[in-house]
């Protein structure tokens, strides 16, 4: 149902932050970030289930809120409010434009993703959120922060690609892209395996599930406090939410995939414990905690894939899990940062940290480096050789001399008259032959 009030409220939840992202529109507001959260608070206050359809937006989408996503919305509001407060306190003056804009864009994307009622809207909002979050990681930071942000960006791009392909497969399977309908249709389509793997890989990249967790470690170590707070509640939470909503779990049993996912989750937990102990840095503790938590989620998902009935019994726990994860990570991060700030140990540790990446986490960088060398050195060199060869051939001037000489040859009278006479005789012969034969 689309009555005006619900339309207004639902649209303004992501809409207001988007509008406020323009510098001109928020220049006179004192606390734009908090104001941007107001429509969400209003929505939380309304107790009913509200949903609207917006057929003219994008490819036809909708926004809705129900009991489960209410908790998520509440968690997000709290976390964002806390982050907004943290952003403004350190120096007393508002953070610069770029940071603010990214903040508001990420907020809009986050809230919109929670409210989205079908796949395309979810994808659109989560993309906005992802890129905005990248801006948050990098804005105002130094070179090392930018490098870490770059890793996140690469993962984000790959994730978006995989999810886009999955989206296409889903759209090919069904016209209605609501979550229920898609899960239903894909599960019954002839080859759900591709969709499943795309979604899982995509959201694994976005969430930092082991073994694709590299960006998570880097983000936790280089993000400013306000942003580190959000790491649990924004990318990880939305990623897990996406997994829960997109994966056709609870419909049909996929024992193989389920087993693999379970195994990965278990390995994630083990890895986190081992590597966390090995590196023993306080700042990264929340990261390893997150890896453990997402590993736990993976185990649950794998179980659900293998045994749909079990999942259906417990699936309303998903949102609760995500909410608690968000709060937990935020709390952990805040506590650790506070501890570090109190002990002034962060500076020394920071210098140590950048040189101590273990070997098993350095291989993506090496691959990228090798590929760049091929592209930037080898291929262009081959091309230059080819062009030089072509240029040499063009310099041969033989044909010019031939043309000149021939023209002078034809101009000599003896030649000309002979040709003339020859021509006459040839014509006569041809005509004679044809009329004699024909």
């Amino acid at each position: 149902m689309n009555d005006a009030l619900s339309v207004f409220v639902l649209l303004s939840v992501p809409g207001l932050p988007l509008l406020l992202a323009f510098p001109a529109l928020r220049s006179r507001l004192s606390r734009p970030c908090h104001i941007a959260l107001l429509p969400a608070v209003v929505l939380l206050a309304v107790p009913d289930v509200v949903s609207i359809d917006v057929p003219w937006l994008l490819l036809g989408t909708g926004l809705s809120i129900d009991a489960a996503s209410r908790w998520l919305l509440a968690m997000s509001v709290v976390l964002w409010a806390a982050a907004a407060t943290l952003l403004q306190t350190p120096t007393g003056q508002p953070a610069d434009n770029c940071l603010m804009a990214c903040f508001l864009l990420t907020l809009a994307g986050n809230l919109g993703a929670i409210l989205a009622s079908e796949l395309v809207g979810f994808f659109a909002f989560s993309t906005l959120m992802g890129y905005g979050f990248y801006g948050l990681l990098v804005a105002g930071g130094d070179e090392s922060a930018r490098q870490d942000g770059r890793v996140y960006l690469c993962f984000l791009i790959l994730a978006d690609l995989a999810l886009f392909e999955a989206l296409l497969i889903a759209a090919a399977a069904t016209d209605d892209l609501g979550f229920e309908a898609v899960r239903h249709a894909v599960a019954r389509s002839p080859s759900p395996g591709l969709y499943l793997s795309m979604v899982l890989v995509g959201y694994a990249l976005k969430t930092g599930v082991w073994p694709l967790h590299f960006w998570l470690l880097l983000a936790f170590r280089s993000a400013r406090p306000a942003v580190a707070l959000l790491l649990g509640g924004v990318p990880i939470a939305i990623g897990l939410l996406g997994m829960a909503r997109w994966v056709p779990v609870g419909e049909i049993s996929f024992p193989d995939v389920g087993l693999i996912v379970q195994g990965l989750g278990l390995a994630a937990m083990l890895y986190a414990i081992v590597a966390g102990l090995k590196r023993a840095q306080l700042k990264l503790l929340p990261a390893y905690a997150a890896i453990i938590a997402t590993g736990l989620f993976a185990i649950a998902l794998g179980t659900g894939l293998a045994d749909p009935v079990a999942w259906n019994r417990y699936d309303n726990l998903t949102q609760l899990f995500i909410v608690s994860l968000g709060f937990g990570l935020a709390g952990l991060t805040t506590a650790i940062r506070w501890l570090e700030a109190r002990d002034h140990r962060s500076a020394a540790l920071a210098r140590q940290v950048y040189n101590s990446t273990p070997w098993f986490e350095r291989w993506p960088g090496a691959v990228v480096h090798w590929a760049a060398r091929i592209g930037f050195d080898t291929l262009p060199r081959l091309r230059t050789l080819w062009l030089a060869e072509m240029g040499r051939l063009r310099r041969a001037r033989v044909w010019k001399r031939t043309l000149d000489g021939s023209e002078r040859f034809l101009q000599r009278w003896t030649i000309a008259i002979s040709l003339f006479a020859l021509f006459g005789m040839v014509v006569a012969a041809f005509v004679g032959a044809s009329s004699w034969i024909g």
Partner: protein
Amino acid sequence: MALTIAAIPWGVMAILLPLVGALACFLSPRRANPLGLVTAFGVVACVAGLAWQVVAQGTQRYAIGGWGAPLGIDVYADGLSVLMLMATAVVGLGISVYSNSYFKRDKAVNFWPLWLFLWSALNALFLSADIFNLYVTLELLGLAAVALVALAGGADALTGAMRYLLVSLLGSLAYLLGVALLYHSFGCLDIALLAERMEPSPAVLAAVGLMSAGLLLKTALFPLHFWLPPAHASAPAPVSALLSALVVKASFYILLRLWLEVFPVTAAALGQLLGLLGAAAVLWGGLQALRQTRLKMLIAYSTVAQLGYLFLAFPLGSTIAWQGTLYLLLSHALAKAAMFMAAGNVLRFGGHDRIVDLDRVAQRLPLTVTAFALAGVSIMGLPPSGGFIAKWLLLEAAMLSGQWWWMIILILGGLLAAAYVFKVIGYAFTRAVMTHEARAVPATMEWAALALALAAILLGLVAPWPLALMEIGLPFGGEAAG
């Protein structure tokens, strides 16, 4: 009123008026320029009248002095001749307007009588109905043309003129021998009568060979084209224009008439030979044009190439092919005249026509460059121009007759033409600083060139009417399509 207008022998008027004008210019040298211009307009009016007559009443035959064929001289106008006359009239008008400003008093007094005399001979040639008349007009045409080439003075012009004279005489002599042989065999000279009585015999074969060779020499088909570039390039600009546009077309016209109406049914092999030589001319002329360093030589070699196109219709032989050839004749006449006029403007402005130094000149003569560019568009065969229509028709004819190799020649010729035309046009877009002081070019000269170039372009948009005009009198009646 309409009756009276219809009764005037416009064809004869078209021949007599320029003669009278020539005499007048010769007799009063001081007023040569205006007199010549007035005559030009008059001739255009006559041709318009004749065209109207032919369209309204069909082919016209007028016996001079009341003596009809085979004893007297007939003036015969069908669609084909009217079309050639109209082309001559338009180009001639343009040249007259151009020469009005080009020649100073001392040169003008020589130019106008010769030019009007040439024009008269040309008109007479297009309206002739018997082969001896054709010889007479052809010879007069050649002599007038040689004199005009020599008008510029200087060693280059005189050498070129001399060579041109020798070639011209050789060609017409061969033609005359052929005429004599034909007369000896059949006893008549009228084309229509000859067509009826023609039958092969050794004398006729020799006549055909001689006449063809002579005419091909005068039309500068490869490899007999050597005389054309020096003659056309060293003449004054309006003379080059009329030579390339009109004079070489005259001998082609005669060849066409004889081929279609008089000579016995064609040998396919001969057609292929002519086509082959035409193709060689296209490629040779294009390549040579690309290499030239002087603008007028470039344009002259471009003429050689375009004349080669004309001979591609012989192997194809269908109505569409002849239509394409004739359309090419018309549009080339307009475009080439415009090009030579543009070159004349450049020469007048800068004192030289070296291509590499064109950048200093081209920026000061935008109208001239536009005229050259538009004429170039027609030469290249790009739409919308008369050249494109002609190319399309020839391609279609080649397609329909299954001789696809001529299509390749047409395309290659177009590409070569694009290369040398854009070589020149590129100089209009430079950032060269204009250094030396130059003589101003009168506006009439620039506008005359531009008008002819525009006519060549417009010819591409009005194609149905000239093509319909060609059908009158069915000169291609003997040729079945395809």
